[in-house]
């Protein structure tokens, strides 16, 4: 997804001279061609996430469109107050684009795992929160939102799903409406595992690429069903719950650090987010809803 991010930016930068990239010593080699083409619009600021966000806010105040990029937890968790005050409270726009979603850096351990970003950023007034699940979703949603003058968060993943959606910012994608008693709701790259898990199960399936604003209208269509949120992060469940008066369950993150390493599938399996575990959980839910 990062390569698509570069392609999208290369294209946009050729037509919009307000775009400026502020990187935290990540993806720098990947953007060599951007740096060559636009040397005064690419800055490897350094390993200082707080200043990347503050600097981005200042550039926005001066009429530029900053794209702030580094590893997910370091800019969203460490620099939360900079995002809150310098961007959101000051009403300065800008794009925070991160890599290392959930367990993309599985082998690096819990310091690099990132699953609170969506939940905490959606709490900030004026913030838009996007979790593209595919390269196409990233491209379409970035073009749609990057210059809207608001702080917008894009969470990239190195493990996109291969499902072709037609993304529109703020609109959920109803992948399956079978009139079933159980509705599975998910977001981001995990859609691949979720689809495999429930392909032949009698469930409805709703997919989100936009966490904030959440598509309440789509959720309300299924308010009389049992909703099971399957997600490898916090934030989606809470956003859906705000609709109110829903019968909901969550299948996802434990209240514990994932103190393991390995690869993405290893971590997902360890917390029940591999296709087989998701399927098992949903089958139990279906049996329970029948009884």
């Amino acid at each position, binding site marked *: 997804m990062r390569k698509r991010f570069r392609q999208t930016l290369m294209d946009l930068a050729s037509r919009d001279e307000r775009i*400026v990239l502020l990187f935290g010593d990540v993806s720098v080699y990947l953007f060599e061609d951007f740096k060559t083409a636009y040397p*005064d*619009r690419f*800055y490897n*600021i*350094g390993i*200082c996430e*707080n*200043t990347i*966000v*503050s*600097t*981005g*806010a*200042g*550039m*926005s*105040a*001066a*009429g*530029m469109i*900053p794209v702030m990029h580094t590893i997910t937890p370091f800019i969203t968790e460490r620099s939360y*107050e*900079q995002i809150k*005050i*310098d961007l959101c*409270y*000051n*009403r300065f726009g800008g794009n925070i684009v991160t890599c290392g979603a959930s367990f993309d850096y599985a082998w690096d351990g819990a310091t690099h795992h990132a699953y609170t970003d969506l939940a905490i950023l959606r709490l900030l007034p004026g913030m838009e929160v996007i979790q593209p699940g595919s390269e196409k979703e990233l491209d379409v949603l970035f073009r749609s939102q990057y210059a809207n003058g608001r702080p917008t968060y894009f969470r990239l993943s190195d493990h996109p799903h291969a499902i072709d959606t037609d993304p529109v910012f703020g609109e959920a994608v109803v992948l399956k409406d079978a009139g079933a008693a159980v509705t599975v709701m998910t977001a981001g790259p995990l859609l691949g595992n979720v689809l495999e898990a429930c392909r032949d199960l009698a469930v409805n399936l709703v997919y989100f690429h936009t966490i904030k604003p959440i598509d309440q209208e789509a959720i309300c269509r299924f308010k009389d069903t049992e909703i099971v949120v399957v997600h490898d992060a916090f934030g989606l469940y809470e956003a859906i719950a705000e609709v109110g008066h829903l019968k909901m369950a969550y299948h996802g993150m434990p209240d514990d650090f994932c103190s393991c390493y390995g690869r993405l599938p290893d971590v997902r399996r360890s917390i029940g987010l591999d296709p087989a575990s998701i399927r098992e959980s949903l089958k139990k839910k279906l049996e329970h809803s029948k009884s």
Partner: protein
Amino acid sequence: MNRFCRAVRQDILKIAKASGHGHIPSCFSVVEILCAVYGTHRHDPKNPGWDQRDIFILSKGHASLAHYCTLARLGYFDIARVASFGSFRTDFGCHADRLKVPGIEVSTGSLGHGIGVAVGMALAFKIKKSDRRVTVVIGDGEANEGSVWEALMVASNLKLDNLTVIYDNNMSHGRGLQITNPVEKLRAFGFRVEEVRGHNVAALKAVLARAPADAKPRAVVAQTKKGYGCPTMVCDHYAWHRRCPTDEEFTRLMEELDEEAV
């Protein structure tokens, strides 16, 4: 103390007294700095959004009352509006909101933020090949924040010679983490550093008016005193940090301001 600075301090005292809010000693330490900044910046009180203006950011946002009173005296708005300072529906909060007060460029309050935003603005002006300047005031207590030093490193690395950081060295943090030798530290971080008597407007203006020479951002270490202008507060600035004067104290402090004036 010149007449402008005395008038600003009188406004601060009156409004703090009436409202029960305001960090008076901290406000008093930056009055000459504010006077010198606006005396050397390009700005237009009748057109606060002028697109060629220089930018000033008060990163130590708790001195907002001094900023409001200075802007009012410069003609940005009527000082009578500031009388509602700190009240429920006021535009003039104890920390400034840029969306409410003309002349406020960045909303500050939490320490260690304004300087990073200033770096971004200065970089943007470089990219645009604009000669607009950015000046930011940070406090010595604020310099406890690591984000201040991050931003300084970045400003130096980017050679932002259109950025001036004024370090209000009012020794506010003697009871906590007082930064020692700020001149040396700022120089070590790659700044062109000048040390100035922070209550001397002419000296401050002389430094601020100087053109950049060596592709380095500039730091001005302003040696100031908390509560300057009122010896009562200078002698016991910890006690006065957040409190407002009684009627008797108010009278005495106003008299002290008159005695300090030239």
